[in-house]
Every structure is written in C-alpha cells, then in structure tokens.
C-alpha cells in the first residue's frame, strides 16, 4: 500500500515537471511531435527505473557514515562519511548506465535502438534523472520504495511530455500572437497543465 502511494504520488501529485520543473529543457525541446515525445519519455522511464535503485545502493553501501566499515574495511572507517562525493558518484553512475543501456539496446533490439537511440545520450544530462536520485536520498526511501519512486517519476515525466506534445501538435492550427509563438505559449500551456495536475492533491490509497 505504501509503495502504491509512492507510485501515485510520484506520477501525479509530485510530477517531476509540474511540481519541480525537472527535465524542462528536453520537455520543451522534444515536445513537438507525439511519437518522438513517447520515445524520449520511455527512455526516461527505463533509465530512471535503473539509476535510482543503483544510486540508492551506492549511497547506502559506499557513501553514508560507516558504510565502508560494514563493507569489511575495518573499524578505522567507522566515521568516514563520503557524502561530499555524492554528486560526482551519481552523475558518473548515470552517464555510465546510459552508455550501458545504449549498448545493450543496440545489441538486443536494433528496432528499439533506432527509435530511442538519438535520445539516450541526451538523458545523461536530463535533470529529472539526477533529480530523482537526489530526492530519493533526501526522502530516505528504502530500496523498494526507491525503485517504485524511480519508475513512477519517469512515468510521470512520460505522461507530461506526451500530453504537451499532443497539445502542441494541435497548436499548429491556431493563431498565436507572434511573440508568444513557441516557448511563450508553451509556458502558458504548461502552467495550465500544472493547474490541472493540482487536482490530484490528496489522492491516496
């Protein structure tokens, strides 16, 4: 039940885009066509579902106080806290996993690779991915919760970018004032969508 709640919360209520503005760059840049939006979105779900639990393991087994001592390095490491290395560790893990995922997909499923391929390198610098890992630490989740949170926030991101892309495809036929074209009107649409997503507040099982 707790896991379902975390899932719902990360998809709808604390949506990465509408509540935290994470991953906005690619959200704005790649939301012109629904098909590409879905491609990038699924890649984000995939990578986020892997990186958050992996980063959880790194955080708990390597970085926190006393973690090195538990690994069998002796009591001299009892008070060692490596959390200042958190950012570098996390971003390198993400970059490495993105690279790995790219290679695996290329071998296993060339069709999927040709669909996702161009987006995968972009994901390494997607704030939503690093953001999920940092939030996961901040909220002291356990491994199962972290996994659900990782997948959930990825799905929330997919939902948001697909919805925006669908609206922007229709937008081509409307007469938008010239200075508002593109980014301006997209900001307003996103604001209104955030409004709509606010109605999910309070939903819990």
């Amino acid at each position, binding site marked *: 039940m707790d896991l379902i709640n975390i899932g719902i919360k990360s998809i709808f209520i604390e949506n990465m885009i*509408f*509540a*935290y*503005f*994470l*991953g*906005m*760059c690619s959200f*704005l*840049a790649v939301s*012109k066509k629904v098909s590409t939006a879905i491609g990038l979105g699924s890649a984000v779900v995939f990578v986020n579902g892997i990186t958050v639990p992996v980063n959880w393991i790194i955080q708990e087994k390597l970085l926190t106080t006393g973690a090195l001592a538990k690994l069998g390095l002796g009591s001299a490491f009892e008070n060692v806290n490596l959390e*200042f*290395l*958190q*950012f*570098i560790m*996390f*971003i*390198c893990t993400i*970059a490495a996993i993105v690279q790995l995922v790219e290679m695996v997909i290329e071998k296993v499923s060339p069709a999927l690779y040709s669909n996702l391929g161009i987006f995968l*390198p972009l994901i*390494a*610098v*997607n*704030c939503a*991915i*690093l*953001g999920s890992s*940092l*939030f996961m*630490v*901040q909220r002291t989740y356990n491994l199962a919760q972290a996994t659900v949170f990782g997948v959930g926030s990825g799905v929330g991101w997919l939902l948001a970018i697909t919805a925006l892309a669908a609206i922007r495809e229709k937008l*081509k036929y409307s007469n938008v*004032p*010239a*200075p*508002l*074209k*593109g*980014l*301006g*009107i997209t*900001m*307003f649409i*996103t*604001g209104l969508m*955030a*409004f709509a997503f*606010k109605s999910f507040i309070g939903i819990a099982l």
Partner: protein
Amino acid sequence: MAEETLEKTGSAVAKKPSEPLLSKRRRKIVADPLNEENPITVQVLGICSALAVTVKLEPTLIMGVSVIFVVALSNLVISLIRNYVPNRVRIIVQLSVVATLVTLVAEILKAYNYPMYKVLGAFVGLIITNCIVMGRLEAFAMGNKPYESVLDGLGNGMGYAWILLTVALFRELLGSGSVFNYPVFANLGIAYTNNSVMVDSIGAFMVLGIIIWVQRTRTGYVETH
C-alpha cells in the same frame, strides 16, 4: 600590476596585441546573453532546476550567484583542456568538471549558510545538469580561448540570473506580499491577500511566459515552428 598581467594574458590569448581587455567584441560576448541571446528566453536552456527556487528572492539570488560561478569556472577549465580531451569522452569529462565545481559550491554553502542549503536542497546538485552549463561548454568553451570563455560564462550566468530574479520578484511580491522577506504590502498599509497560485509552480510558468512575451515583443524575435 595585477591589471597589467591581466592585460597581457588577455592580449596573448587573442593573439592580437592591439586588442584591449574589454574590446567591443568581448563586451558583446558578455552583453549578448543578457538580452538578445538570453539563455532562458531565447535559447531555451536551463529552465530545469531554476524555477523551483524562485518562490523567494533570497534563495534565487544564491542560486544565481552559484550558477554564474559554475558556468564561468567550468567554461575556463574546459577551455584550458579542450585540446587534450578526446571527442568521444568529452561529455563525461565535462560532467566531472561541473560536478566538482558544484560540490565545491554545495560544501561552501553547507559551511557558511546551512539554513539556505536546507532551503535549496537538491537543487544545488541539479546545477550539474543545468542545460546552460553543458550548453555553453559544448557550444562555446570547446572551441574558444580561455579568457573569452570566462566572459561568455559570466554573460550567460548573468543573463540567467536576472530572468530568475525577475520571476522571483513577482512571485514573492504577489505570493508572499514581500520583497527580500520585507513585508511590502503590510508596511504600506494595503490590504493584500496572498495569491497562493504564485507560490505554486503554476505562478512560475505564467510569470516566465509573460516575461518571454514582453521580451520577444521588444526584440521582435519570432520562433518559427
């Protein structure tokens, strides 16, 4: 003395002994990102982690200064090593340089202003994936000399900071009725009910949309689909 050495490096860098430290071209590198080439409103970079901190002016100011610091210094470092980095691993090299600088910012903040570190939370770390930083490294620092790269970093950082501060000004004024935690409306004796939409993320999207509208009306920039 210090100025003289700076002057020397500046001209050595440009390989044109006659070019002054702040020549017209270099002033343009700094000034363009403030308005016509603004990273947020024109290049659409770095909106990611930025808007979440604009509820109040104070954290926004800290965030702006941190980003200026990180962009300028990472531009410098990458520009210095740009000829030694193999093209295939450049992204991870850039990320590690940026992550190191951001860690530095986070540690300084933790040591000297812990309450603010708590407020900003994960968003300090998210400067790493701020598209402005990576964007400038890719687009400018990889192909330009160190001094120009620093100027470019400063310009883009400031272009980013002033948009954020404008957004934060409206959000704090209308959302909390204050400016830098100084209760404006209460002290002016105006009865004002705080608009909670402004505190919410919705307000940030709307205010930024309006800023983009105003700025593009003035510059005449039109985006073609």
